[in-house]
């Protein structure tokens, strides 16, 4: 709907792809840049999550629960079941971690259901040129989560298996030999294979989430292109037609997307539990 710059659809979409940052990035990795919008919305959503759950946790009663407590307990017991099914070790961290991941990512993704131009329009009203409201469409946010999980995987592996056990797991699988010399030759091959598997975990975690949400947002943007001409297009019949078409398609996509954002949050959570379970279990 936003008339954006006069560059048409390409400019409109590119405009929506840019974060609100302190300065333009030089190169693909630049640690002098910070994306204000991602940080702002993720902290805001963290506060929403923490505020809601903390409010309930503070007054959690073992008696008859209220409606809000009931809702929170459904989520908590759902997460708890997932953790109990997969993770058999004793850990005070895994279940709260899984709950945090599920809720936070769900809230990230839920921002995608807010009409794509609504918040950027408000932002422009207060003088901010770019605004990306969905933190999970920013690689920094998804990688931050997957790298934190990755650090925890390494930590748990070292804690449960020791340094030798961890290195052994990376070098003595999948090829084994009884002969020491042959085994020594197999170690580098094993290491290459295993480290690819190992490193693929955080990368696949973050890219899967990022890709799904990026694509979802892109569909909303493409639908918005239908009415890019703005109010002036409504003078013609085709303008009205595209308006209705955008509304109908966006509605269908939003309903479908509701499924995707939940599933993506769920997948991230379950895979995190699985990876941590693998890190703590001996084979």
């Amino acid at each position, binding site marked *: 709907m936003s008339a954006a710059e006069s560059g048409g659809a390409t400019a409109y979409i590119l405009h929506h792809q840019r974060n609100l940052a302190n300065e333009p990035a030089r190169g693909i990795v630049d640690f002098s840049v910070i994306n204000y919008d991602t940080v702002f919305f993720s902290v805001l959503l963290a506060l929403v999550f923490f505020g809601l759950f903390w409010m309930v*946790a503070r007054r959690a009663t073992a008696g008859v*629960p209220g409606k809000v407590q009931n809702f929170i307990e459904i989520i908590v017991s759902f997460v708890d079941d997932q953790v109990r099914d997969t993770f058999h070790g004793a850990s005070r961290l895994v279940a709260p971690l899984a709950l945090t991941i599920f809720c936070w990512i769900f809230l990230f993704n839920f921002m995608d259901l807010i009409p794509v131009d609504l918040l950027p329009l408000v932002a422009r009203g207060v003088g901010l040129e770019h605004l990306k409201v969905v933190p999970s469409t920013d690689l920094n946010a998804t990688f931050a989560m997957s790298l934190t999980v990755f650090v925890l995987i390494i930590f748990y592996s070292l804690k449960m298996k020791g340094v030798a056990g961890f290195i052994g797991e990376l070098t003595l699988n999948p090829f084994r030999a009884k002969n020491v010399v042959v085994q020594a030759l197999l170690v580098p091959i094993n290491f290459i294979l295993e480290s690819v598997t190992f490193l693929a975990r955080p990368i696949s975690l973050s890219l899967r989430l990022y890709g799904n949400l990026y694509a979802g947002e892109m569909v909303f943007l493409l639908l918005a292109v239908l009415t890019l001409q703005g109010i002036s297009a409504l003078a013609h019949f085709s303008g009205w037609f595209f308006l209705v078409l955008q509304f109908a398609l966006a509605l269908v996509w939003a309903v479908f997307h509701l499924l995707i954002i939940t599933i993506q949050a769920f997948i991230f959570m379950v895979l995190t539990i699985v990876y941590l379970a693998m890190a703590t279990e001996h084979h």
Partner: protein
Amino acid sequence: MNINLTLVVQMVVFATLIWGTMKWIWPQILSAMDERQRKIAQGLAAAEEGEKELSQARDKADAIIREARERANQIIDHAQHRANELIDQAKGAASSESARIVAAAQQQIELDTTRAKESLRREVAGIAVGAASKLLGREIDARAHADLLEQLAEEI
């Protein structure tokens, strides 16, 4: 699209959020849920126990009522028996009393009759003696004799 300082900031935010959830949210909610589960289990067990106790108490009450009814029947039987006994006793006493009274009355009558006969006899004898003496005192005087006899007969 690039990797930048946001990554580090996000990791810090994420780690803080996990820590907060671990410390202030998860244990509280889960302990409340466990507590409730325990309470419900206890409640169900107590309900079952109560039901069992109720049926036991009902059995006991039935037994007591049955016993009481038996006892009451016994008492009633006993009382009836005793009443019959008393009535019989009273009847016996009354009939013996009446027999006694009748006997006493008869005796009295007999006594009175005897006494009357005695006095009559005494009088008759006196009269007879008087008449005889009168008879013996005078010579046979048909007329006087006849008068005396008539007098005697009248007097008897």
